């Protein structure tokens, strides 16, 4: 293999399209150096965790979007972590969006994303991420301090933890702290089906995230009307985004409670909200509550 002239190798590799180039470049250092300048620089990466294939490979790509599938089984673990690391090194700080989707649940024995993989992902993915999505990821094997690396992102606009499970040591305050650097830029926050999230989190977000437009807390059972009230209060104060869409399906949210709170004379913004039940059509009809501020803003 060493005897192959660079010229010949270069010619061969020039046949390959972008995803194949990525795969080829992580085979060994010689190929990597050779391909360095030709490698694509995607802006979005989609990582699927799946143990049915056990092949780390870049499988699909457009100019902006790349997706890879890796497994978490013991045998391939370190190899795939290296693969991930190399990929991130190639992508560098250009990456804007990262999605991690967990398909490990189908396996007979329970498998979770490991601390090491998560650590590599968070450490190597560059600091300029604007969107971070986690879907169905079971983070119970991941140390809270690994997740704390979220704190390195300063420009996140969208963060979503859909049906994710957090590790035992994780607390709301830690979660808030690691998101703090991005509070000024966050526009969309999603935490669904989460046991950890309570009004404490909701209230803090309401107070701090002035650009927020979408706050999805569906199936977070510890969320009550307090979060909505906090947004009412916050909206009266300085806000850049004029409306906030709160999604509170399947939570402990109670409209009557909200009404009580809003009529409470102790409410710092004063009784300036009018509630109105409306029906929003999102493919099917859904009851919604439109809160209008006597001044001008609505929720």
């Amino acid at each position, binding site marked *: *293999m060493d*005897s*192959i*002239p660079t*010229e*010949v190798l270069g*010619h*061969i*590799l*020039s*046949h*390959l*399209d972008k995803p*194949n180039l990525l*795969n*080829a470049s*992580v*085979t*060994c*250092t*010689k*190929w*990597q150096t050779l391909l360095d300048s030709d490698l694509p620089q995607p802006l979005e990466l989609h990582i699927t965790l799946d143990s049915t294939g056990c*092949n*780390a*490979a870049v499988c699909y790509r457009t100019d902006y979007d790349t997706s890879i599938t890796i497994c978490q089984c013991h045998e391939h673990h*370190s*190899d795939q*972590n*290296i*693969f991930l*690391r*190399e990929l991130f090194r190639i992508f560098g700080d250009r990456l804007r969006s990262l999605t991690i989707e967990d398909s490990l649940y189908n396996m007979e024995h329970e498998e979770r994303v490991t*601390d*090491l993989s998560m*650590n*590599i992902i968070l*450490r190597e993915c560059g600091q300029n991420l604007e969107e971070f999505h986690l879907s169905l990821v079971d983070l119970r094997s991941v*140390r809270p*301090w*690994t997740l704390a690396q979220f704190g390195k992102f300063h420009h996140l606009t969208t963060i979503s933890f859909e049906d994710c499970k957090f590790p035992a040591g994780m607390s709301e305050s830690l979660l808030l702290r690691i998101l703090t650097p991005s509070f000024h830029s966050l526009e969309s926050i999603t935490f669904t089906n989460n046991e950890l999230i309570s009004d404490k989190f909701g209230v803090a977000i309401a107070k701090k995230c002035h650009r927020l437009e979408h706050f999805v807390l569906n199936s977070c059972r510890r969320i009550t009307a307090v979060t909505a009230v906090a947004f009412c209060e916050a909206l009266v104060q300085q806000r850049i985004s004029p409306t906030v869409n709160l999604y509170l399906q399947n939570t402990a949210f109670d409209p009557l409670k909200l009404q009580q709170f809003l009529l409470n004379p102790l409410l710092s913004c004063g009784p300036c909200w009018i509630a109105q039940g409306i029906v929003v059509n999102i493919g099917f009809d859904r009851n919604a509550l439109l809160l209008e501020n006597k001044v001008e803003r609505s929720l």
Partner: protein
Amino acid sequence: MATESANGVSSPELNERDVVITTNDNRNFTVKIGVARVSKTINNMIQDLGESLDLSSGIPLPNVDGPIFEKVLEWCEEHKNAPEIKVEQDPHTRERKWFTMTEWEEEYFRKFLSHLWDLAMAANYLEIPSLYYYTCQKLAERIKGRTPEQIREMFGIEDDLTEEEKAEIRRTNVWCTY
């Protein structure tokens, strides 16, 4: 024939004459000039020597061994009258356009699948564009759609990355292992 030359050695009769080519394992091949000059390297040698060429003394090829040259000759025989091929790029994606191979060529590569690297290098040295481009494409085809691990396995590439990286990953992760 594509190789009409100025100094007059390229006549049809000459193409029918034999030339002896010696590979680096001292094997002699008696080849028709018309076939041998599919290789630009050999063609240049023949032209440089011009009329003084002593066809029986042999042209030495220090970089090619007998078994591979045999295979190359097979290709040359088939392609002695083939027009020069051009490498094209897709104007939109700027990715290379792949050549379509004839049945004979597909069969040829199937036969010598395990010698693709040697063929590519020999074709590169002998300057046989058709063989060179096609072999490279064939190799690229084998890389395509494979995972890094499979590529390593197939070409016997040593995974130097992994060892080095493994060590580094272990080093940089010390903080979270206690």
